[in-house]
């Protein structure tokens, strides 16, 4: 079993800065038209770690057959992914300004057409893990070095298709596959605990055959430590349950169902941006 490596302090501060940049982009993007600001905010540190450090991807060669694949299964949170990709140079940051706008490039659910770095279109829940399984299996069969990461929402763990894939991956020893669950505890109509409780959540993944770690999904050190030690066990897929907070980063959005949907008003935008600017 691998154990987490020590992470350099300057790396942590870089990831924090990257996360802050992503969050400000997301706020600007969702302020214009909307687009699941709360769902995007809860994933920001994970995406910053992935695109800042973990993923072996090259913006100059987005089609490299040996690149790591990242699938945002929770396609509704894609404002944060678009921001991370733009900052990494996959496409110009000016594209972010058109998020959700008529005639623009970026739809408000992840759409791959003509968008470098988006591996797959998602938006209907429960597709991403199975897609990642297929990619990981192909990589194994072809002895390719790439790894596949899928970021799931907690809500989409209600979907039967998620568990079809969850059963498939360990049986086929896909240790080149990592499922990260953004466990922000709020789904579309209420708290996960009240809608359809997932607990004991980690035990479920473990029972299906995954090597599981539970981390604070906003702590760059914990995220990096986990994602840089995959596979946690040889011949098993890795599952990272990232405990997160919906709307993380803006006090009045945190842990509130309302911000699954709502675009901030001008006044809320100013207040939120001030909080983000003032953050570490």
């Amino acid at each position: 079993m691998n154990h987490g490596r020590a992470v350099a302090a300057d790396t942590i501060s870089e990831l924090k800065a990257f996360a802050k940049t992503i969050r400000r982009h997301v706020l600007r993007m969702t302020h214009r038209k909307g687009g699941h600001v709360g769902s995007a905010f809860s994933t920001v540190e994970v995406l910053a770690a992935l695109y800042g450090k973990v993923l072996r991807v090259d913006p100059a060669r987005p089609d490299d057959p040996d690149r790591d694949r990242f699938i945002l299964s929770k396609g509704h949170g894609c404002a944060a992914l678009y921001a991370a990709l733009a900052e990494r140079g996959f496409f110009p940051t000016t594209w972010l300004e058109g998020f959700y706008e008529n005639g623009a490039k970026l739809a408000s659910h992840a759409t791959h057409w003509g968008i470098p770095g988006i591996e797959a279109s998602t938006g209907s829940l429960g597709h991403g893990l199975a897609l990642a399984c297929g990619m990981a299996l192909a990589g194994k069969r072809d002895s390719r070095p790439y790894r596949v990461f899928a970021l799931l929402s907690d809500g989409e763990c209600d979907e039967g298709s998620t568990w079809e894939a969850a059963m498939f991956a360990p049986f086929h020893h896909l240790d080149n596959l990592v499922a990260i669950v953004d466990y922000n505890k709020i789904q579309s109509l209420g708290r996960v605990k009240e809608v359809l409780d997932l607990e004991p959540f980690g035990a479920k993944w473990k029972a299906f055959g995954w090597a599981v770690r539970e981390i604070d999904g906003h702590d760059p050190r914990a995220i990096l430590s986990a994602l840089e030690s995959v596979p946690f066990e040889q011949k098993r897929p890795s599952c990272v349950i990232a405990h997160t907070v919906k709307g993380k980063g803006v006090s009045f959005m945190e842990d509130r169902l309302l911000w699954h949907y709502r675009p901030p008003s001008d006044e809320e935008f100013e207040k939120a941006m001030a909080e983000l600017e003032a953050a570490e």
Partner: protein
Amino acid sequence: MRPAFLHSLLDLAEHDQRINLVVGDLGFGLVEPFAQKYPDRFLNIGVAEQNLITVSTGMAMCGKVVFAYSIANFPTLRCLEQIRNDICHHDASVVVVSVGCGLNYGALGVTHHATEDLAIMRALPGMTAVAPGDPVEAALATRALAKQARPAYLRLGKAGEPRVHASDVVDFQLGKAIKVREGSDVTLIASGTMLHNSVQAAERLADQGIDARVLSMHTIKPLDTGAVHDAARETRAILTLEEHSVIGGLGSAVAETLAEFNEAKPPFKRLGIPSVFIREVGNQDYLKNCYSLSVEGILRTVTAMLETEGVRQ
């Protein structure tokens, strides 16, 4: 058709490393030679059709050409959104294969009657929908779809369907009807398992002095509209024949083409299964007979059409 498909796939796999066969825990007595010869390119995904489609798509996005195999409605209706969003939207090289379509599994009951599949597959953007008319066409369709390596639906009969084409060498092209028989009184446009009955009916019609053209419209999408236009110009009635609901399949596709045809139109009729759940219990031939899809039923339909419309010579 099933054996013809598999023989063709085995042959393709020998020359094309990309070919994979993924099954949803079905194919007993059929898929074993592939599984044994190409264990690294065979996968039984289990009884999990959503996973069947999406895992196949993931594999296709990493360079594979995947034939995703199951029976009846399981690989289509059960996992329709996976086909739409995953296979079609990603233009993935996955051919969804369903065996035993139409009323093939007649006596097994309504769950096993695949009677709306083509209508639904045809509606999906980017999808090619093919229903071969005999084992020769099944083998050639398999080859053509592997070469095309794009989203496709291959609707097959089970086993034991009679050959229609005498030779294995048939000019089979996706989206191009095959004129099985020339004729000028009526055109029978058939898909899938209705081709053989149509040819037999045409022979019987000839005895009555009715000269029937028979088209094998194996590709429902894209439809060979040129062949439909020719039939409208050159023959005096058109009848579509399909072991499928009259809503949305071959009959609808031809009707759409004719409705937009700007020249004089001959009388037209769709022969298929009405939009009902079949309550009768019986095998394929029995049920086909219930819905006039037998040779006798075709004869009755054609004769009535020509007499009613007064187009008989």
